[in-house]
């Protein structure tokens, strides 16, 4: 029984982490300027945190502020901030931006 609970917790935490990681990365992927961290921070981060908080508040109310739900919500919130912190301060990854190359009409001109 304990093993099952541990596996469930492991998968639950893992799944939550995966969702958070993907959702935060998608903020960068779909941003107009994915390599400009300040731009992403100003334009995406506030709305992301507000939506996440609204979801967590809904979970909390849905579970009638149960002990486990409170800790889960707190954990998810901290996890999200940590991931944002990593992405904004420490992550060195650069994103390739798709810019349309304009074909030259007269390539042989001097």
């Amino acid at each position, binding site marked *: 029984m304990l093993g099952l609970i541990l596996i469930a917790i492991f998968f639950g935490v893992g799944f939550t982490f995966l969702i958070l990681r993907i959702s935060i990365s998608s903020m960068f992927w779909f941003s107009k300027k994915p390599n400009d*961290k*300040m731009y992403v*921070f*100003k*334009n995406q*981060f*506030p*709305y992301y*945190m*507000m939506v996440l*908080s609204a979801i967590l508040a809904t979970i909390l109310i849905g579970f009638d502020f149960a002990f486990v739900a409170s800790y889960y919500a707190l954990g998810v919130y901290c996890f999200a*901030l940590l991931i*944002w*912190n990593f992405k*904004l*301060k420490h992550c060195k990854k650069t994103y390739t931006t798709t810019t349309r190359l304009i074909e030259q009409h007269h390539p042989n001109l001097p």
Partner: protein
Amino acid sequence: MKKLALFIAALLFSTLFYDQSIGLNLFLFSILTVVILFINNKSHFKNRKTQIYSAAYLITGLTIFFHNSTLSIIANFVAFFTLIGHLSETKSSIYINWLNGLYTTIAGFFHRNFALANTKSKDEDIEEKEPIDYLHWAKIILIPAVILITFIALYKEGNPVFSNIIDQIDFSFVNIQWLLVAGLGYYLFNNIYAPIEVEPATELDLKTENDLQKTSTFSLPKLKQENQLGVILISLLNALIVLYLITDVAFITSDFEIKASLFSAQVHSGINALIASIVIAIMILLYVFRGNLNFYEQNKTLKRLAYTWIILNILLVFSITFKNSQYIYYFGLTYKRIGVLVYLILATIGLATTLLKIGSIKNNWYLFRVNTQAAFIILIASSTVNWDYHITNYNFNYAKSMDFKYLLNLSDNNTFILNEQLNTKALDEEDVAQIKSKYHKYIYELRTSNWQELQYDNFKLNSK
């Protein structure tokens, strides 16, 4: 000083809220929040609007103490976000205040930290901060702690007096949950003490003016056609609403006996349709006066027709109000019926501001700004009323009939007045038993509540 204030506030937060239900604590928290905000934003508090928002926030806190209702708690939260959002940018609209207030409460500390780190890294003159050596800190805490514990264990074996002293040390008073709540309080106050803003939304709001501007697509032939369409449409709608109002007056002034039986069906099916018609009326006017037609010189007839239509719609609101109040008189007050009245007030404000918008050539943002402000004022004002008490009082003393079960299922705010009815009204045995049960349960709750959960009813109980 700031850190100390935040630390004290965190301890008070935990004292007020750990393992307590809502009561006096939310009012004290409101005072604490205003104090913390005042300490850190003194210059902002000279602004009249800030003072009004602070007063509104404190009033909602006080209403929770007087009658602990869901509405007053919601109003308190909204006033909290409004005040904090207003401190982040005093010139922004109220809905941007809500956005900024919410964002500050959720992530103010993180935002300030990252924004500060970013500006510092850009500034070449400032020396780079030395990174914190976490390993070193772990070493200087963990290694002495492990060695100290080992030596304590060894000395305990060698000396019974020392062993006794060590055994007497009791850390059971440390409540981890209490500390966690205090931590949460510290984080909350750390977030809000210096409010921040959602920059793109705030900038856009500050750039957006209230006045409508003439656009480059100004074309007289097109506007003439639009004007004609508007005149025909609004004339017909005016004629229709006049006809409706005449029939409505005829219905209201008709035989009273028929009216009482019909009111239920009328109110339920009719009011929703009329409410929708008022919303659509405002939307049509907004569409007609959306752009350059406002600057068309020959739009005077159209404007007069629009004003007439707005005034007729206001008359329609009065007609609905009359029907609703008749319904209340016959069947008693309920939250839904009060909700209809609140909606009608909002609709009247909406119609009046639409009239102002057309008259002084304002844009739709003006309408949105003024109406959200009005909604906020109505929320705060309605939260100050103990609705459960007034519903019960009206239904027992003035209404022709009432639903007793409905009154019994209201919150504890009507318990005392229900109990008073036992002496004055002839009630069924079952009803009496239910009132007594509710009363005794509430009295028990009041008597067993802590000082943080105190309500005005506690004092009423003590004075009896």
